[in-house]
Structure formats: C-alpha cells, structure tokens
C-alpha cells in the first residue's frame, strides 16, 4: 500500500476520442500531486509525459479503434501493460464516432474531405475489448475523477476495484430527482444504464443518454415496449440505444430491432 522502492508505473494512452476522459486525471486537483508522488506517470501526452512504448503496471486507455495503426498500437500497449483499464464510452463501447457504423461511411468521407483517398480508416469504430483483453472497464462519457481515483486506490491496495453496475434509477432516487419518464413522459435510458454519473441528466429534467453503457441485468425489451407506448417512432427508438454506447450488447441488438 505504501510505496517501498520502485513506484508503480502508469501510462495514459489515447485513441479516437475527444480527450475529455483524460481530464478526469487533470481535474483531480490536489490529488494529482498525491498521485504523482505515489506512481510514476511515464506516458500521458496531454500532460506532457511521452514514452508510449514504456512497460507499465497500469495502462489507462481512452478512445476507440478506427485505423489499422490503432490495431497495431493497442497490441503493443497490451503487451507492455500488466493491467489494462479502458476509460470512457469510446474505449468501452465505441463512443460517438461509432455512429458511422450505422451509416454509409464512405459516402460521408467523400462529402466531407477534399481528398478522401488520404484516409485509411477501418470499416467500423470499435471498443478496445474487440481487439485485446481488458482487465477493467471504467464507463462514462466522460469518466469522472471519482471513478478514476477509486480504481487507482484499489489497484494500489492490491484489491479488485468495486464494479458499479446498478441502474441509474437507484442513484436517481437517492438524489431525490423526480422521474422524468413517469412525471413527464420523457424517454429515459436510466433503467438499463449503469450508474456512475450521479443521475446527472434526470436531475436536470432530461432523460438519461446511456453514457455509462448497460447496467447488469438490463431489460431492453421491456423498456423499448414502454418507449413505443410513449409514442417514440422506430428511428427515435433506435437512437436511444445507438447513441454514445452503441457498440456493446444488448444495446447494439436492441437498437438494430428498430433499424430500417
């Protein structure tokens, strides 16, 4: 628990992403000093440390896999890391960029880029676990400091980090938010979504966007059925599941049921 000789080595890697999850480290405040005293952060490009090929005890990986180069890089990171922890919706479930998996991506390339032949992207955006074994997933869009701090503390103590897997509804009720689905008829993904955000959206009278991916024991069939009753059209229903965390089951399949 208290560091003796060599401090554990940590790396923070980035793939296709907005960089927002890495802010969970940079936003730690005073804890960032504590962290750098306890571990050696050898690679963290956004914070200025560069040693992408270093062998580390824990690698945090942000972002999804989108190019052939990404696939090579993630294999190398896996080989060089004792624990591989994915952080955020992109790394765990494809993220927003995986919306292209449901469209004609080539058509978009030609429409957006002057010289699309320079692009070398894979057919789909995929989560990290589609390519390598992942030891721990921290879900969220973005992940927050509380999650990252908790995971680091547990790993340093040599215990398995607690997995948060209850539905958002549990925290929504602890926060005493009024249920937007019952009181307003607003569709909410909370009943199938993993907790972790503190029920942020329902507290601001919005439905949950499923940022934290599927909770344990999710019943998407029943929720979809209720959404139909609220008047959602098939395409709107598909978008509930194919939003930020589309590349993970049962969300992929639940959305596909409403695909044209």
């Amino acid at each position, binding site marked *: 628990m208290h560091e003796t000789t060599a401090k554990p080595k940590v790396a923070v890697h980035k793939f296709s992403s907005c960089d927002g999850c890495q802010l969970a480290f940079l936003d730690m405040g005073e804890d960032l000093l504590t962290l750098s005293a306890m571990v050696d952060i050898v690679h963290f490009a956004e914070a200025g440390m560069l040693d992408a090929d270093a062998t580390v005890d824990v690698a945090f990986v942000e972002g999804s896999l989108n190019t052939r180069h990404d696939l090579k890089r993630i294999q190398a990171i896996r080989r060089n890391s004792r624990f591989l922890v994915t952080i955020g919706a992109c790394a765990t479930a494809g993220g927003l960029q995986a919306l292209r998996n449901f469209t004609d991506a080539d058509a978009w390339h030609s429409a957006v880029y002057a010289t699309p032949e320079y692009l070398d992207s894979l057919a789909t955006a995929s989560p990290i676990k589609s390519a390598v074994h992942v030891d721990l997933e921290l879900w969220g869009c973005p992940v927050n400091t509380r999650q990252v701090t908790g995971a680091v503390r547990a790993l340093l103590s040599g215990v398995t980090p607690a997995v948060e897997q209850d539905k958002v509804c549990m925290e929504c*009720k602890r926060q005493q938010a009024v249920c937007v689905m019952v009181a307003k008829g607003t569709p909410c993904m909370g009943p199938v979504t993993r907790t972790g955000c503190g029920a942020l959206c329902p507290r601001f009278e919005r439905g949950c966007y499923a940022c934290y991916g599927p909770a344990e024991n999710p019943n998407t069939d029943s929720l979809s059925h209720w959404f139909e009753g609220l008047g959602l059209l098939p395409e709107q229903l598909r978008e509930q599941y194919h939003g930020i965390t589309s590349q993970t089951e049962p969300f992929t399949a639940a959305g596909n049921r409403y695909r044209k």
Partner: protein
Amino acid sequence: MATGGASPGWRGFLPREAFDTLLRALEAAGYECIGPRVEDGAILYRGLSAGSDLPQGVEEAQAPGHYRLQHTDTPRCFAWAVGPQAIKPHLFTPREALWETERDADGRLTFRPVEPGPRPLAIIGVRACDLAALALQDQHFLRAGNADPYYAHRREGLFLVAVNCTHPAATCFCVSTGDGPQAGDDCDLALDELDEGYAVRAASSKGETIVQQLPLQALTEAQQAQIGREREAARSAQQRTMPAGNLRDHLFNAWEHPRWAQVAERCLSCGNCTSVCPTCFCHQQVDVPTLDGGNATHYREWDSCFTQNHSYIHGITLRPDTRSRYRQWLTHKLGSWHDQYGRSGCVGCGRCITWCPVGIDITEEVSALLAEAGK
C-alpha cells in the same frame, strides 16, 4: 387504525388566511418547516415559509407508470394524494456518512463516528399511509436495545402535521390495508381541509402546545358534516385493493407460479419501487478511501432487493435474475414481514405502482398470484 369511526376530537377551525400562524408557532418552537410544494412537475416536501407556498388548486392524476399535476380552481392546498416521497428520506436518508477512519504515521487506525446534529423538523401535510409506514420504519430502526442512532436522532426531533385525504389517487388502496385515508394518533396535529380552512385536532402533547397558540374559531356543525361526507367519499373513491390478512402462506405456496416469470418479462429490475416505498429499509454500506489510502469515510446508502449486489455473497449471486428478485420483494413485503414486524409491509400508498417506469401494479400481480395459486 384510522377508519374515521372514532370521535374526531377537533379543537377548532383554522381559517385559510391564518395558516401562517401554524408555521410561526412551529418556528418559534424551534422547528424547520417543510411541506408540499410543486417542483419539477411533482409535489415534493420543501422549505415552507408561508401558506402561499402551498400547492393551492393543484390536483394530480396517477396511474401505473404515470403522474401528472393538474391546475384547478379549487381553493384547496391538499387536493392530491402522495408525491414520490414523504417522511422516509428525512429519517432514513438516501446517503449518509456513518464514520470516518484515520490512519496515523504508525499505521494505527482511529474510527470517528459522524454524529448527526439534532435537527428539529416539522413536516406539514403527511398522509395516513405515511404515518403507518413511519410506524414500521420505527419498528425496524428503533428496535429496543439496538436502535440506529442516526435515525433515532432525527426521529426525536420530528413534528408531524397530518392532513386527512380527500382526493385519493387512482393508485391508492390504503382502505384495504387499513392504513388510511384518515390519520390516527401517530402524529402531532391532524387537519381536515375544507374550502375555507382547516379543522384542527391535537394528537400529542407537543401538538397540544402548538394548538394553544393558534387563533382557532368554533367548528360549525355544517363544517363537521361536510368533513364527514368527504371522509366517506375518500374511502369509497379508492379503486384498488390488496387482499386482507396474512398472505405469507399463499405467496410462498406460489413459489413456482408462472406469474413470476411473466412479471419478470416486464420488470426492469430498476429498484424504483423499493426506493419510493415508504417502508422499504434496505441499504448497503460503502467505504470511500482517500487517494493516498490514509483516511476513509464509511457511507450508508439506499439499496434494493432488485440490485445484484443485494444478494451477492462470497462469489455467488443468490438472485441473479429478475424473476427471483421480484419474488423476493413481494414475498418479503407481503409475506415474511408478518413474521418480522407483525404485519404486512404494504400500507397501500400506491407509490410503487405510479413510479414504476413500466407501470407494474402490485395489486394486479398479487391477485394474479393468488387467483391461480399453484397452477
């Protein structure tokens, strides 16, 4: 319990415009006053500084998975039944720190309780069903010789102003459980609302002290007759029922009933029903260490028999699927509660029906389970 047959014992009539005298008397006695207010499309208990804060003219429509407020021109402020929460979160709080641990330089641990300060709180406008639920929570948290100090502290400072129901929701079934719609003596003051004000009854010595400070007028015979009619109307307006008596054997005999799997197809295993239920008391405890591992805070927070963790022990989840979780809820609430607390854990408030995101109705499930028991 509160069937309205007993002598009403009214002390007088408080005109609507004099409602603030009640708040001032409670404040002078040291209470913070909370009561019903409209917020985020629901009736929630919030700080109350004047009668004008009350939801005047507000009625509500409740149905399975459905809650909507409606604005009418009734002068009444309590023309609704129950919102999502009432007393429970103020005593059994959704999340609170129980103790802190500190590690000194030699690695020795010191444990320090986080003592809740006294907080005299007056809750205005509680319902009969919530008082019955409070009596059950008291049984659980104030068990002789093993009282929960956090709960006990807050319970001691509580002043309860009940308002008898005149507008039960379509989801209410307190008549069939025997818990409403009129409050008994498990409160300090009990009010009956009329268009022009409130009939006031003192139900405790604390309540008596407050009553003596109110500018009460005589309650007319016409007013008394009106209250009697409205009480009766509130009873007969209820549309749902829960079968009377101890359902334990019936439910446990229906252990393999196909209905459990059918309800599990609809149930989201989300825990909303247990969270809004005023009698449910399940919680989990979590430690949150500081990053350097030196200190930690130990929290208690609401849990539910619908979560996986709730039945997780030593690598095994005893209730991995929704069928077994729903069955746990119902057989405990309506069955084994009788062994633990001498009565059913349901007071007929209907919250679990309204606030279930997919509208699962406990009364409907029970009647299906009992009607074809053993099939």
